[in-house]
């Protein structure tokens, strides 16, 4: 398989290099732990070349962003056409912390105010506004958003929260909470056992 040399070049020049560097080991841990002995660059090449992991490309292009120089923009366009991202993911967030993982990126819409470090998002998840033009959610660090969960409106999700499958979150959640249901309710909080 051809080396994604353009991607490596853009990655090394990018200001988001540190974030991508910290994303890679988490993706490897979730997707294929047997590759954990690879170096960072080797793992990046593997992730970009794997056709079933197009969602990593979405995150990669999000991190790279829109380069300032025209030459870099052309290079990015060429790079994108050789490793196409998945067309069922939409990411529109001012800042996502390092270690962000999307598993099975089908129908994933992430429009948030801010997302903390080491968050995990599964398929069919929508994070966005409740009414057009309304506020957007804020996710803390280490938040786990399960399959089909919807986080809508200007809510704040505390650190280390777990949001159960198919739940709808329209209220704030405190840190360390586990919540599920439509509408969502906490089933465990910090210091208590579920």
């Amino acid at each position: 398989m051809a080396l994604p040399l353009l991607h490596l070049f853009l990655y090394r020049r990018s200001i988001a290099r540190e974030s991508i560097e910290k994303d890679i080991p988490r993706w490897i841990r979730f997707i294929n732990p047997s590759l954990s002995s690879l170096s960072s660059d080797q793992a990046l090449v593997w992730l970009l070349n794997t056709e079933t992991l197009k969602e990593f490309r979405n995150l990669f292009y999000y991190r790279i962003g829109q380069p300032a120089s025209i030459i870099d923009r052309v290079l990015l366009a060429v790079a994108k056409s050789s490793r196409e991202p998945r067309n069922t993911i939409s990411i529109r967030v001012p800042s996502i912390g390092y270690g962000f993982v999307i598993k099975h990126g089908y129908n994933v819409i992430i429009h948030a105010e801010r997302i903390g470090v080491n968050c995990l998002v599964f398929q069919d998840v929508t994070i966005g506004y409740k009414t057009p033009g309304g506020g957007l959610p804020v996710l803390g660090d280490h938040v786990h958003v399960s399959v089909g969960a919807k986080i809508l409106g200007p809510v704040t999700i505390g650190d280390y929260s777990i949001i159960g499958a198919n739940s709808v979150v329209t209220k704030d959640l405190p840190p360390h909470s586990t919540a599920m249901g439509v509408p969502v309710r906490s089933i465990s909080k910090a210091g208590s056992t579920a």
Partner: protein
Amino acid sequence: MIILQTIRSFPHILLFKRSSQRTVIEADVKRWVEIRAPGRLSHSALKNITWLLDSFPEFRNLFYFRLGTYAGKAGKLLLFIGRILYSPNETPAFAFCEIGPGLYIEFGYGTIIGPRRIGENCWINSGVTIGYKNDVDPSPIIGNNVYIGAGAQVLGPITIGDNAVIGANAVVLRDVPPNCMVVGVPARIIKRDGERVKRFSAEA
């Protein structure tokens, strides 16, 4: 850039001009522009179609659905070329049904639209399924100005009234009266004519 867009959308503009669905498509374009970029409302319909086709793959799906019944060999050839130049997403997928003007689709990844009829100015989000509950009963009828939230499922021979709001991840299996908001699995009414309804007083 604009020259390239004009060349790419040339077959679409021709099809639009010759289509019998022209007024319906014009209403769609107006609605999409109103929601996505109100500043463009003063532009001409053709300019806006070019912009929408270029920016929103889900608009292409809707556009090709509207043109779907267009007959004639020249039309089919144009449609074939158009689909190569601006290829649609796999979803939203439309069944053969009657859909009123002004339908807006927000993203539409994994959205299946298979009702008997949809009214005017509806809003459908991503992950929505409108369709059969079993292989005997027909599919739903949806009124005007209905909002269907992300991941909701509307199934079976039911009627959704005008101005209804269906919350995210709701599973709707019974009729919804007009001006109501329903949420939950199975869906229950939480708001009627803008007033909150107590939990077990009324079933959807």
